[in-house]
Protein backbone atom coordinates (compact mmCIF):
# COMPACT_ATOMS: atom_id res chain seq x y z
CA UNK A 1 0.00 0.00 0.00
CA UNK A 2 1.10 3.57 -0.80
CA UNK A 3 3.91 2.00 -2.84
CA UNK A 4 5.95 1.65 0.36
CA UNK A 5 8.26 -1.37 0.04
CA UNK A 6 9.27 -1.88 3.70
CA UNK A 7 8.91 -5.24 5.33
CA UNK A 8 8.28 -5.42 9.05
CA UNK A 9 11.88 -6.56 9.50
CA UNK A 10 13.11 -3.52 7.55
CA UNK A 11 11.20 -1.13 9.77
CA UNK A 12 12.50 -2.74 12.94
CA UNK A 13 16.09 -2.72 11.73
CA UNK A 14 15.87 0.87 10.53
CA UNK A 15 14.36 2.12 13.78
CA UNK A 16 17.13 0.31 15.64
CA UNK A 17 19.77 2.03 13.50
CA UNK A 18 18.20 5.40 14.19
CA UNK A 19 17.91 4.58 17.86
CA UNK A 20 14.20 5.06 18.40
CA UNK A 21 11.52 2.59 19.41
CA UNK A 22 8.61 3.59 17.24
CA UNK A 23 7.90 5.45 14.01
CA UNK A 24 6.01 8.00 16.05
CA UNK A 25 9.24 8.96 17.83
CA UNK A 26 10.55 10.44 14.60
CA UNK A 27 7.96 13.20 14.96
CA UNK A 28 8.94 14.23 18.48
CA UNK A 29 9.94 17.73 17.37
CA UNK A 30 6.40 18.51 16.24
CA UNK A 31 4.24 20.11 18.95
CA UNK A 32 1.96 17.32 20.18
CA UNK A 33 -1.17 19.46 19.96
CA UNK A 34 -0.75 19.83 16.22
CA UNK A 35 -0.71 16.14 15.36
CA UNK A 36 -3.85 14.77 13.76
CA UNK A 37 -5.61 11.55 14.62
CA UNK A 38 -6.78 10.56 11.19
CA UNK A 39 -8.06 11.69 7.83
CA UNK A 40 -11.70 10.79 8.17
CA UNK A 41 -12.89 12.42 5.00
CA UNK A 42 -10.47 10.56 2.76
CA UNK A 43 -12.10 7.44 1.33
CA UNK A 44 -10.72 3.94 1.85
CA UNK A 45 -8.04 2.86 -0.61
CA UNK A 46 -9.00 1.23 -3.89
CA UNK A 47 -6.75 -1.28 -5.57
CA UNK A 48 -5.68 -0.73 -9.14
CA UNK A 49 -8.42 -2.93 -10.53
CA UNK A 50 -11.07 -0.97 -8.66
CA UNK A 51 -9.58 2.38 -9.65
CA UNK A 52 -9.47 1.24 -13.25
CA UNK A 53 -13.14 0.45 -13.16
CA UNK A 54 -14.03 3.74 -11.45
CA UNK A 55 -12.07 5.82 -13.92
CA UNK A 56 -13.47 3.96 -16.92
CA UNK A 57 -16.98 4.70 -15.68
CA UNK A 58 -16.12 8.34 -15.13
CA UNK A 59 -14.55 8.58 -18.57
CA UNK A 60 -17.65 7.10 -20.19
CA UNK A 61 -19.69 10.06 -18.87
CA UNK A 62 -17.48 12.42 -20.83
CA UNK A 63 -17.46 10.81 -24.27
CA UNK A 64 -19.77 10.72 -27.21
CA UNK A 65 -19.41 14.19 -28.69
CA UNK A 66 -18.27 15.07 -32.17
CA UNK A 67 -16.61 18.40 -31.49
CA UNK A 68 -16.53 21.55 -33.58
CA UNK A 69 -15.08 23.54 -30.71
CA UNK A 70 -11.88 25.50 -31.12
CA UNK A 71 -11.34 28.81 -29.33
CA UNK A 72 -7.75 28.12 -28.38
CA UNK A 73 -7.73 24.29 -28.15
CA UNK A 74 -7.84 22.23 -31.32
CA UNK A 75 -8.44 18.61 -32.18
CA UNK A 76 -5.79 17.26 -34.53
CA UNK A 77 -4.64 13.75 -35.33
CA UNK A 78 -1.79 12.71 -33.04
CA UNK A 79 0.48 9.94 -34.36
CA UNK A 80 0.75 7.00 -31.94
CA UNK A 81 4.52 7.39 -31.77
CA UNK A 82 4.20 10.79 -30.07
CA UNK A 83 2.81 9.61 -26.76
CA UNK A 84 4.36 6.13 -26.91
CA UNK A 85 7.74 7.86 -26.65
CA UNK A 86 6.72 10.81 -24.50
CA UNK A 87 5.48 8.54 -21.72
CA UNK A 88 8.68 6.50 -21.59
CA UNK A 89 9.81 6.58 -17.98
CA UNK A 90 13.13 8.17 -18.91
CA UNK A 91 11.29 11.30 -20.03
CA UNK A 92 8.17 11.00 -17.89
CA UNK A 93 9.84 10.46 -14.52
CA UNK A 94 12.97 12.63 -14.90
CA UNK A 95 13.44 15.95 -13.14
CA UNK A 96 14.39 19.32 -14.60
CA UNK A 97 17.81 18.83 -16.23
CA UNK A 98 19.88 20.69 -13.67
CA UNK A 99 22.37 17.80 -13.48
CA UNK A 100 23.39 18.10 -17.12
CA UNK A 101 25.54 14.95 -17.43
CA UNK A 102 22.58 12.80 -16.34
CA UNK A 103 20.03 14.68 -18.43
CA UNK A 104 21.47 14.93 -21.92
CA UNK A 105 18.32 13.36 -23.40
CA UNK A 106 16.02 16.03 -22.03
CA UNK A 107 18.52 18.80 -22.76
CA UNK A 108 19.06 17.82 -26.37
CA UNK A 109 15.29 17.48 -26.75
CA UNK A 110 14.84 21.06 -25.54
CA UNK A 111 17.56 22.28 -27.91
CA UNK A 112 15.78 20.58 -30.81
CA UNK A 113 12.47 22.04 -29.65
CA UNK A 114 13.97 25.54 -29.43
CA UNK A 115 15.26 25.12 -32.97
CA UNK A 116 11.94 23.93 -34.41
CA UNK A 117 9.88 26.65 -32.69
CA UNK A 118 12.35 29.36 -33.69
CA UNK A 119 12.19 28.19 -37.32
CA UNK A 120 8.42 27.95 -37.28
CA UNK A 121 7.98 31.47 -35.91
CA UNK A 122 10.90 32.93 -37.83
CA UNK A 123 12.42 34.23 -34.60
CA UNK A 124 15.98 33.96 -33.23
CA UNK A 125 15.55 32.23 -29.88
CA UNK A 126 13.00 30.15 -28.01
CA UNK A 127 12.73 29.17 -24.38
CA UNK A 128 11.88 25.68 -23.12
CA UNK A 129 8.13 26.42 -22.62
CA UNK A 130 5.69 28.35 -20.46
CA UNK A 131 2.51 27.06 -18.77
CA UNK A 132 0.09 27.77 -21.63
CA UNK A 133 -0.69 30.32 -24.32
CA UNK A 134 -2.41 32.67 -21.90
CA UNK A 135 0.39 32.71 -19.33
CA UNK A 136 2.95 33.06 -22.13
CA UNK A 137 1.07 36.16 -23.30
CA UNK A 138 1.15 37.60 -19.78
CA UNK A 139 4.88 36.91 -19.47
CA UNK A 140 5.48 38.46 -22.89
CA UNK A 141 3.83 41.67 -21.67
CA UNK A 142 6.10 41.74 -18.61
CA UNK A 143 9.10 41.00 -20.79
CA UNK A 144 8.20 43.83 -23.17
CA UNK A 145 8.11 46.27 -20.26
CA UNK A 146 11.63 45.20 -19.27
CA UNK A 147 12.91 45.20 -22.84
CA UNK A 148 11.45 48.52 -24.03
CA UNK A 149 13.62 50.95 -22.13
CA UNK A 150 12.43 53.97 -24.09
CA UNK A 151 8.92 53.51 -22.77
CA UNK A 152 8.04 54.53 -19.24
CA UNK A 153 4.30 53.89 -19.36
CA UNK A 154 4.10 50.07 -18.94
CA UNK A 155 1.14 50.41 -21.27
CA UNK A 156 0.19 47.52 -23.52
CA UNK A 157 -2.32 47.79 -26.36
CA UNK A 158 -4.39 44.66 -26.71
CA UNK A 159 -6.92 43.98 -29.44
CA UNK A 160 -10.38 43.05 -28.24
CA UNK A 161 -10.04 40.20 -30.74
CA UNK A 162 -7.32 38.60 -28.58
CA UNK A 163 -8.66 35.46 -26.86
CA UNK A 164 -10.81 36.79 -23.97
CA UNK A 165 -9.26 34.32 -21.51
CA UNK A 166 -5.77 35.47 -22.50
CA UNK A 167 -6.79 39.07 -21.84
CA UNK A 168 -8.02 38.10 -18.38
CA UNK A 169 -4.94 36.07 -17.53
CA UNK A 170 -2.60 38.82 -18.71
CA UNK A 171 -4.38 41.35 -16.55
CA UNK A 172 -4.63 39.09 -13.51
CA UNK A 173 -0.95 38.17 -13.78
CA UNK A 174 0.49 41.65 -14.21
CA UNK A 175 -1.73 44.27 -12.57
CA UNK A 176 0.14 44.11 -9.27
CA UNK A 177 3.25 45.24 -11.14
CA UNK A 178 1.42 48.25 -12.53
CA UNK A 179 0.97 47.16 -16.15
CA UNK A 180 -1.97 48.75 -17.94
CA UNK A 181 -3.82 47.13 -20.80
CA UNK A 182 -5.84 49.17 -23.23
CA UNK A 183 -8.26 47.36 -25.53
CA UNK A 184 -8.41 48.27 -29.20
CA UNK A 185 -11.88 47.68 -30.67
CA UNK A 186 -12.51 45.67 -33.82
CA UNK A 187 -14.41 46.68 -36.91
CA UNK A 188 -17.89 45.19 -36.76
CA UNK A 189 -18.00 44.27 -40.45
CA UNK A 190 -14.59 42.61 -40.73
CA UNK A 191 -13.94 41.23 -37.25
CA UNK A 192 -10.42 42.62 -37.37
CA UNK A 193 -8.63 45.32 -35.46
CA UNK A 194 -9.72 48.92 -36.13
CA UNK A 195 -6.79 50.92 -37.56
CA UNK A 196 -8.61 54.20 -36.89
CA UNK A 197 -8.76 53.40 -33.18
CA UNK A 198 -5.02 52.78 -33.24
CA UNK A 199 -4.37 56.02 -35.06
CA UNK A 200 -6.07 57.96 -32.27
CA UNK A 201 -3.26 56.75 -29.98
CA UNK A 202 -0.43 58.05 -32.11
CA UNK A 203 1.98 60.18 -30.11
CA UNK A 204 1.26 58.51 -26.79
CA UNK A 205 3.77 56.32 -24.96
CA UNK A 206 2.97 52.76 -25.94
CA UNK A 207 5.20 50.01 -24.55
CA UNK A 208 3.96 47.19 -26.75
CA UNK A 209 1.20 46.20 -29.13
CA UNK A 210 -0.20 42.66 -29.01
CA UNK A 211 -1.35 41.14 -32.28
CA UNK A 212 -3.10 37.77 -32.44
CA UNK A 213 -3.00 36.00 -35.80
CA UNK A 214 -5.39 34.43 -36.65
CA UNK A 215 -7.42 36.41 -34.14
CA UNK A 216 -9.94 34.91 -31.73
CA UNK A 217 -12.63 35.01 -34.45
CA UNK A 218 -10.34 33.05 -36.80
CA UNK A 219 -9.93 36.18 -38.95
CA UNK A 220 -6.66 37.44 -40.38
CA UNK A 221 -5.20 40.75 -39.26
CA UNK A 222 -3.10 43.06 -41.42
CA UNK A 223 -0.02 42.09 -39.46
CA UNK A 224 2.50 43.94 -41.62
CA UNK A 225 0.85 47.33 -41.23
CA UNK A 226 0.20 46.81 -37.53
CA UNK A 227 3.80 45.80 -36.84
CA UNK A 228 5.21 48.77 -38.72
CA UNK A 229 2.77 51.12 -37.00
CA UNK A 230 3.96 49.99 -33.57
CA UNK A 231 7.65 50.08 -34.42
CA UNK A 232 7.34 53.57 -35.88
CA UNK A 233 6.08 54.70 -32.48
CA UNK A 234 8.77 53.05 -30.42
CA UNK A 235 6.52 50.22 -29.25
CA UNK A 236 7.52 46.57 -29.26
CA UNK A 237 5.32 44.01 -30.97
CA UNK A 238 4.12 40.81 -29.31
CA UNK A 239 2.67 38.24 -31.69
CA UNK A 240 0.23 35.63 -30.37
CA UNK A 241 0.07 32.87 -32.94
CA UNK A 242 -1.33 29.39 -33.51
CA UNK A 243 1.75 27.32 -34.41
CA UNK A 244 -0.27 25.13 -36.78
CA UNK A 245 -1.32 28.18 -38.77
CA UNK A 246 2.32 29.11 -39.33
CA UNK A 247 2.63 26.31 -41.87
CA UNK A 248 0.46 28.50 -44.11
CA UNK A 249 0.91 32.04 -42.87
CA UNK A 250 3.78 34.48 -42.72
CA UNK A 251 5.77 33.89 -39.52
CA UNK A 252 5.96 36.73 -36.95
CA UNK A 253 9.68 37.11 -37.62
CA UNK A 254 8.72 38.39 -41.08
CA UNK A 255 5.85 40.69 -40.15
CA UNK A 256 6.35 44.26 -41.36
CA UNK A 257 9.77 45.52 -42.27
CA UNK A 258 11.53 44.39 -39.07
CA UNK A 259 9.54 41.43 -37.76
CA UNK A 260 8.04 41.29 -34.27
CA UNK A 261 10.02 41.40 -31.03
CA UNK A 262 8.37 38.56 -29.11
CA UNK A 263 6.17 35.75 -30.42
CA UNK A 264 4.17 33.50 -28.11
CA UNK A 265 1.31 31.08 -28.39
CA UNK A 266 -0.45 27.94 -27.32
CA UNK A 267 1.50 24.85 -28.32
CA UNK A 268 -1.38 22.42 -27.85
CA UNK A 269 -2.11 21.95 -31.59
CA UNK A 270 1.33 20.30 -31.90
CA UNK A 271 0.62 16.78 -30.69
CA UNK A 272 -1.05 17.53 -27.37
CA UNK A 273 -4.47 16.01 -26.73
CA UNK A 274 -7.39 18.26 -25.73
CA UNK A 275 -7.48 16.56 -22.35
CA UNK A 276 -10.05 18.87 -20.80
CA UNK A 277 -7.83 21.93 -21.05
CA UNK A 278 -4.40 20.76 -20.03
CA UNK A 279 -1.64 20.09 -19.60
CA UNK A 280 -0.78 22.15 -22.68
CA UNK A 281 2.28 24.34 -23.13
CA UNK A 282 2.99 27.91 -24.02
CA UNK A 283 5.89 28.72 -26.28
CA UNK A 284 7.88 31.93 -26.33
CA UNK A 285 10.36 33.15 -28.93
CA UNK A 286 12.13 36.48 -29.32
CA UNK A 287 14.76 38.43 -31.17
CA UNK A 288 18.27 37.73 -29.92
CA UNK A 289 18.65 41.24 -28.50
CA UNK A 290 15.94 40.47 -25.94
CA UNK A 291 17.19 37.04 -24.85
CA UNK A 292 18.29 38.19 -21.38
CA UNK A 293 14.82 39.51 -20.68
CA UNK A 294 13.19 36.15 -21.42
CA UNK A 295 11.59 34.18 -18.62
CA UNK A 296 12.00 30.42 -18.26
CA UNK A 297 14.65 27.87 -19.06
CA UNK A 298 16.91 28.01 -22.09
CA UNK A 299 19.28 25.29 -23.28
CA UNK A 300 22.54 25.93 -25.07
CA UNK A 301 25.08 23.72 -26.78
CA UNK A 302 28.62 23.78 -25.45
CA UNK A 303 31.64 21.54 -25.03
CA UNK A 304 32.56 19.24 -22.18
CA UNK A 305 35.94 19.09 -20.46
CA UNK A 306 37.14 16.63 -23.09
CA UNK A 307 36.08 18.89 -25.96
CA UNK A 308 32.99 16.89 -26.89
CA UNK A 309 29.69 18.62 -27.68
CA UNK A 310 26.90 18.54 -25.14
CA UNK A 311 23.92 20.48 -23.87
CA UNK A 312 23.29 22.49 -20.71
CA UNK A 313 20.88 25.01 -19.20
CA UNK A 314 22.24 28.46 -19.87
CA UNK A 315 21.61 32.12 -19.04
CA UNK A 316 20.40 30.88 -15.67
CA UNK A 317 21.24 34.15 -13.95
CA UNK A 318 17.87 35.40 -15.29
CA UNK A 319 16.03 32.82 -13.22
CA UNK A 320 14.52 32.70 -9.76
CA UNK A 321 16.94 30.14 -8.28
CA UNK A 322 19.81 32.58 -8.83
CA UNK A 323 18.41 36.09 -9.06
CA UNK A 324 15.53 35.52 -6.60
CA UNK A 325 13.52 38.74 -6.16
CA UNK A 326 15.10 40.25 -9.30
CA UNK A 327 14.45 37.28 -11.60
CA UNK A 328 12.70 37.80 -14.94
CA UNK A 329 9.85 35.60 -13.67
CA UNK A 330 9.06 33.23 -10.81
CA UNK A 331 8.55 30.33 -13.26
CA UNK A 332 10.42 27.16 -12.29
CA UNK A 333 8.56 24.00 -13.31
CA UNK A 334 7.36 24.44 -16.91
CA UNK A 335 5.56 22.07 -19.30
CA UNK A 336 8.53 19.92 -20.29
CA UNK A 337 6.69 16.74 -21.16
CA UNK A 338 4.31 18.57 -23.52
CA UNK A 339 7.28 20.22 -25.20
CA UNK A 340 8.64 16.69 -25.63
CA UNK A 341 5.44 15.61 -27.34
CA UNK A 342 5.53 18.67 -29.61
CA UNK A 343 9.12 18.02 -30.63
CA UNK A 344 8.27 14.46 -31.63
CA UNK A 345 5.11 15.66 -33.40
CA UNK A 346 6.98 18.31 -35.39
CA UNK A 347 9.62 15.74 -36.37
CA UNK A 348 6.95 13.39 -37.69
CA UNK A 349 4.98 16.06 -39.50
CA UNK A 350 7.83 18.11 -40.92
CA UNK A 351 7.01 21.18 -42.95
CA UNK A 352 4.97 19.22 -45.47
CA UNK A 353 2.83 17.32 -42.97
CA UNK A 354 2.19 20.46 -40.99
CA UNK A 355 1.19 22.37 -44.08
CA UNK A 356 -1.14 19.60 -45.20
CA UNK A 357 -2.76 19.54 -41.76
CA UNK A 358 -3.23 23.30 -41.68
CA UNK A 359 -4.52 23.38 -45.25
CA UNK A 360 -6.93 20.50 -44.66
CA UNK A 361 -8.24 22.24 -41.54
CA UNK A 362 -8.79 25.42 -43.51
CA UNK A 363 -10.52 23.58 -46.32
CA UNK A 364 -12.76 21.62 -43.93
CA UNK A 365 -13.81 24.82 -42.17
CA UNK A 366 -14.66 26.51 -45.47
CA UNK A 367 -16.71 23.47 -46.39
CA UNK A 368 -18.48 23.57 -43.04
CA UNK A 369 -19.23 27.28 -43.24
CA UNK A 370 -20.56 26.86 -46.78
CA UNK A 371 -22.86 24.06 -45.61
CA UNK A 372 -24.08 25.83 -42.50
CA UNK A 373 -24.67 29.26 -44.05
CA UNK A 374 -26.99 27.59 -46.55
CA UNK A 375 -29.35 26.96 -43.63
CA UNK A 376 -31.93 29.73 -43.18
CA UNK A 377 -31.12 31.71 -40.05
CA UNK A 378 -27.35 31.09 -40.20
CA UNK A 379 -24.87 33.59 -41.59
CA UNK A 380 -21.20 34.42 -41.26
CA UNK A 381 -20.72 37.33 -38.86
CA UNK A 382 -17.73 38.80 -40.67
CA UNK A 383 -16.67 39.31 -44.26
CA UNK A 384 -13.28 37.99 -45.31
CA UNK A 385 -11.07 34.95 -45.06
CA UNK A 386 -10.41 32.93 -41.93
CA UNK A 387 -8.01 30.14 -40.97
CA UNK A 388 -9.97 27.27 -39.39
CA UNK A 389 -12.54 29.05 -37.26
CA UNK A 390 -15.51 31.21 -38.12
CA UNK A 391 -18.14 33.21 -36.23
CA UNK A 392 -21.70 32.34 -37.25
CA UNK A 393 -24.75 34.34 -36.29
CA UNK A 394 -27.90 32.41 -35.57
CA UNK A 395 -31.50 33.48 -35.76
CA UNK A 396 -32.21 31.84 -32.39
CA UNK A 397 -30.40 32.16 -29.02
CA UNK A 398 -27.14 30.27 -29.26
CA UNK A 399 -27.27 28.63 -25.82
CA UNK A 400 -30.46 26.70 -26.62
CA UNK A 401 -29.26 25.73 -30.08
CA UNK A 402 -25.98 24.40 -28.70
CA UNK A 403 -27.89 22.41 -26.08
CA UNK A 404 -30.00 20.70 -28.71
CA UNK A 405 -26.89 19.95 -30.73
CA UNK A 406 -25.19 18.45 -27.67
CA UNK A 407 -28.22 16.24 -27.13
CA UNK A 408 -27.51 14.86 -30.60
CA UNK A 409 -23.85 14.26 -29.84
CA UNK A 410 -22.46 17.40 -31.42
CA UNK A 411 -20.45 20.14 -29.73
CA UNK A 412 -21.34 22.85 -32.22
CA UNK A 413 -19.07 25.61 -31.04
CA UNK A 414 -18.62 28.26 -28.39
CA UNK A 415 -21.46 30.60 -27.42
CA UNK A 416 -19.94 34.08 -27.70
CA UNK A 417 -22.67 35.88 -25.70
CA UNK A 418 -20.64 36.06 -22.46
CA UNK A 419 -17.64 37.49 -24.32
CA UNK A 420 -19.03 39.59 -27.17
CA UNK A 421 -22.66 40.45 -26.34
CA UNK A 422 -22.73 42.98 -29.18
CA UNK A 423 -22.69 40.10 -31.66
CA UNK A 424 -26.10 38.89 -30.50
CA UNK A 425 -26.60 35.17 -30.95
CA UNK A 426 -23.25 34.04 -32.26
CA UNK A 427 -21.05 30.97 -32.06
CA UNK A 428 -17.40 30.37 -32.86
CA UNK A 429 -17.08 27.12 -34.75
CA UNK A 430 -14.09 25.15 -35.98
CA UNK A 431 -13.29 22.15 -38.15
CA UNK A 432 -9.92 20.46 -38.50
CA UNK A 433 -8.48 17.69 -40.66
CA UNK A 434 -10.08 15.20 -38.27
CA UNK A 435 -13.59 15.90 -39.58
CA UNK A 436 -15.07 14.00 -42.51
CA UNK A 437 -17.66 15.28 -44.95
CA UNK A 438 -20.15 13.00 -43.20
CA UNK A 439 -19.37 14.75 -39.88
CA UNK A 440 -19.98 18.14 -41.47
CA UNK A 441 -23.25 17.00 -43.01
CA UNK A 442 -24.41 15.56 -39.72
CA UNK A 443 -23.71 18.91 -38.07
CA UNK A 444 -25.63 20.79 -40.78
CA UNK A 445 -28.61 18.49 -40.48
CA UNK A 446 -28.69 18.80 -36.69
CA UNK A 447 -28.31 22.59 -36.80
CA UNK A 448 -31.15 22.92 -39.31
CA UNK A 449 -33.35 20.79 -37.08
CA UNK A 450 -32.39 22.75 -33.96
CA UNK A 451 -33.24 26.07 -35.56
CA UNK A 452 -36.47 24.72 -37.00
CA UNK A 453 -37.50 23.24 -33.68
CA UNK A 454 -36.81 26.54 -31.97
CA UNK A 455 -38.84 28.28 -34.66
CA UNK A 456 -41.74 25.92 -34.15
CA UNK A 457 -41.61 26.17 -30.34
Amino acid at each position, binding site marked *: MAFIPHTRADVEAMLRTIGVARLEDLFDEIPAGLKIKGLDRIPEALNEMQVGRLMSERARCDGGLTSFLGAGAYEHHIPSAVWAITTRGEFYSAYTPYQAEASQGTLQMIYEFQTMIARLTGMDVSNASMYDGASATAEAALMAVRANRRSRAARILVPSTLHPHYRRVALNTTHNQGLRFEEIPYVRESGTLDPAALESLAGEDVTALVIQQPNFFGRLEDVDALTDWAHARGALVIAVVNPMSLALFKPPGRWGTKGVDIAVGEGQPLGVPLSGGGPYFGFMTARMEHVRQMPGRIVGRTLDSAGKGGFTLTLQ*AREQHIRRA*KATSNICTNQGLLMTAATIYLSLMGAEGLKRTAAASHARTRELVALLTRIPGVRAAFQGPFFHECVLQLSRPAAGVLRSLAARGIAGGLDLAPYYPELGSAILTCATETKTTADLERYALALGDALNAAQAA
Partner: protein
Amino acid sequence: MSQLPQDLKYTKSHEWVRTRADGSLEIGITDHAQHALGDLVFVEVPEAGRAVKSGDACAVVESVKAASDVYAPVSGEILEGNAQLASAPETVNGDAYGAGWLYRLKPAAGAVQAAQLLSPQDYQKVLDAEAG
Protein backbone atom coordinates in the same frame (compact mmCIF):
# COMPACT_ATOMS: atom_id res chain seq x y z
CA MET B 1 45.38 37.39 -2.34
CA SER B 2 43.47 40.25 -3.87
CA GLN B 3 45.60 43.23 -4.80
CA LEU B 4 44.36 46.65 -3.69
CA PRO B 5 45.62 49.67 -5.66
CA GLN B 6 46.44 52.39 -3.22
CA ASP B 7 45.21 55.28 -5.38
CA LEU B 8 41.57 54.14 -5.35
CA LYS B 9 38.66 54.47 -2.94
CA TYR B 10 36.38 51.53 -2.17
CA THR B 11 32.89 50.65 -0.93
CA LYS B 12 31.59 47.96 1.40
CA SER B 13 29.71 46.49 -1.55
CA HIS B 14 33.02 45.88 -3.36
CA GLU B 15 33.09 48.72 -5.90
CA TRP B 16 36.22 50.79 -6.52
CA VAL B 17 36.24 54.49 -7.42
CA ARG B 18 38.95 56.33 -9.33
CA THR B 19 39.01 60.14 -9.53
CA ARG B 20 40.05 61.18 -13.04
CA ALA B 21 41.94 64.32 -14.01
CA ASP B 22 38.74 66.13 -15.01
CA GLY B 23 37.08 65.40 -11.68
CA SER B 24 34.83 62.66 -13.09
CA LEU B 25 34.78 59.23 -11.44
CA GLU B 26 35.49 55.81 -12.91
CA ILE B 27 33.82 52.89 -11.20
CA GLY B 28 34.39 49.16 -11.31
CA ILE B 29 34.25 46.08 -9.12
CA THR B 30 37.19 44.96 -7.02
CA ASP B 31 39.40 42.02 -7.77
CA HIS B 32 37.93 40.32 -4.73
CA ALA B 33 34.43 40.74 -6.19
CA GLN B 34 35.31 39.40 -9.64
CA HIS B 35 37.03 36.45 -8.05
CA ALA B 36 34.03 35.65 -5.85
CA LEU B 37 31.69 35.80 -8.85
CA GLY B 38 33.87 33.66 -11.09
CA ASP B 39 34.07 33.91 -14.88
CA LEU B 40 31.78 36.72 -15.97
CA VAL B 41 29.53 35.94 -18.90
CA PHE B 42 27.63 39.21 -19.13
CA VAL B 43 27.98 42.79 -17.99
CA GLU B 44 25.26 45.39 -18.27
CA VAL B 45 26.41 48.99 -17.99
CA PRO B 46 24.26 52.13 -17.56
CA GLU B 47 23.36 54.48 -20.40
CA ALA B 48 24.96 57.89 -20.64
CA GLY B 49 22.86 60.72 -19.31
CA ARG B 50 21.15 58.76 -16.57
CA ALA B 51 20.99 60.51 -13.20
CA VAL B 52 21.82 58.18 -10.31
CA LYS B 53 21.70 58.54 -6.56
CA SER B 54 24.26 57.04 -4.24
CA GLY B 55 23.20 53.44 -3.58
CA ASP B 56 21.21 52.99 -6.82
CA ALA B 57 21.81 49.75 -8.67
CA CYS B 58 23.19 50.87 -12.00
CA ALA B 59 25.12 47.97 -13.51
CA VAL B 60 24.86 44.19 -13.41
CA VAL B 61 27.67 41.66 -13.50
CA GLU B 62 26.72 38.09 -14.19
CA SER B 63 28.54 34.77 -13.98
CA VAL B 64 27.03 31.34 -14.59
CA LYS B 65 26.26 30.88 -10.91
CA ALA B 66 25.46 34.41 -9.71
CA ALA B 67 24.26 37.82 -10.78
CA SER B 68 25.12 40.88 -8.82
CA ASP B 69 24.07 44.51 -8.91
CA VAL B 70 26.74 47.19 -8.91
CA TYR B 71 25.73 50.27 -6.94
CA ALA B 72 26.52 53.90 -7.53
CA PRO B 73 28.93 54.90 -4.75
CA VAL B 74 28.27 58.58 -5.36
CA SER B 75 25.29 60.55 -6.73
CA GLY B 76 25.69 62.10 -10.15
CA GLU B 77 25.14 61.67 -13.87
CA ILE B 78 26.40 58.77 -15.95
CA LEU B 79 28.90 59.94 -18.56
CA GLU B 80 29.44 56.61 -20.26
CA GLY B 81 29.33 52.88 -19.77
CA ASN B 82 32.24 50.69 -20.88
CA ALA B 83 30.95 49.50 -24.24
CA GLN B 84 33.80 46.99 -24.66
CA LEU B 85 32.35 44.76 -21.96
CA ALA B 86 29.27 43.77 -23.98
CA SER B 87 31.40 41.52 -26.20
CA ALA B 88 34.22 40.88 -23.73
CA PRO B 89 32.87 40.52 -20.18
CA GLU B 90 35.97 38.51 -19.26
CA THR B 91 37.91 41.81 -19.27
CA VAL B 92 36.57 42.41 -15.77
CA ASN B 93 38.08 39.12 -14.61
CA GLY B 94 41.42 39.84 -16.25
CA ASP B 95 41.83 43.53 -15.45
CA ALA B 96 39.36 44.57 -12.79
CA TYR B 97 41.01 47.89 -11.98
CA GLY B 98 41.95 48.85 -15.54
CA ALA B 99 40.25 47.93 -18.81
CA GLY B 100 37.47 46.28 -16.79
CA TRP B 101 36.01 49.56 -15.52
CA LEU B 102 32.22 49.61 -15.73
CA TYR B 103 31.12 53.23 -16.06
CA ARG B 104 32.13 56.85 -15.61
CA LEU B 105 30.13 59.32 -13.64
CA LYS B 106 30.08 63.09 -13.14
CA PRO B 107 29.49 63.55 -9.42
CA ALA B 108 26.84 65.95 -8.23
CA ALA B 109 28.06 68.96 -6.25
CA GLY B 110 29.26 67.87 -2.85
CA ALA B 111 28.41 64.25 -3.58
CA VAL B 112 31.94 62.90 -3.25
CA GLN B 113 32.31 64.49 0.15
CA ALA B 114 28.92 63.11 1.23
CA ALA B 115 29.72 59.57 0.08
CA GLN B 116 31.24 57.24 2.62
CA LEU B 117 34.11 55.86 0.59
CA LEU B 118 36.69 53.59 2.14
CA SER B 119 40.46 53.87 2.02
CA PRO B 120 42.35 50.77 0.82
CA GLN B 121 43.19 50.00 4.45
CA ASP B 122 39.56 50.21 5.56
CA TYR B 123 38.40 48.12 2.63
CA GLN B 124 41.00 45.50 3.52
CA LYS B 125 39.40 45.36 6.96
CA VAL B 126 36.04 44.69 5.31
CA LEU B 127 37.60 41.81 3.41
CA ASP B 128 39.29 40.45 6.51
CA ALA B 129 35.99 40.58 8.41
CA GLU B 130 34.19 38.67 5.64
CA ALA B 131 36.87 36.02 5.55
CA GLY B 132 36.87 35.76 9.35
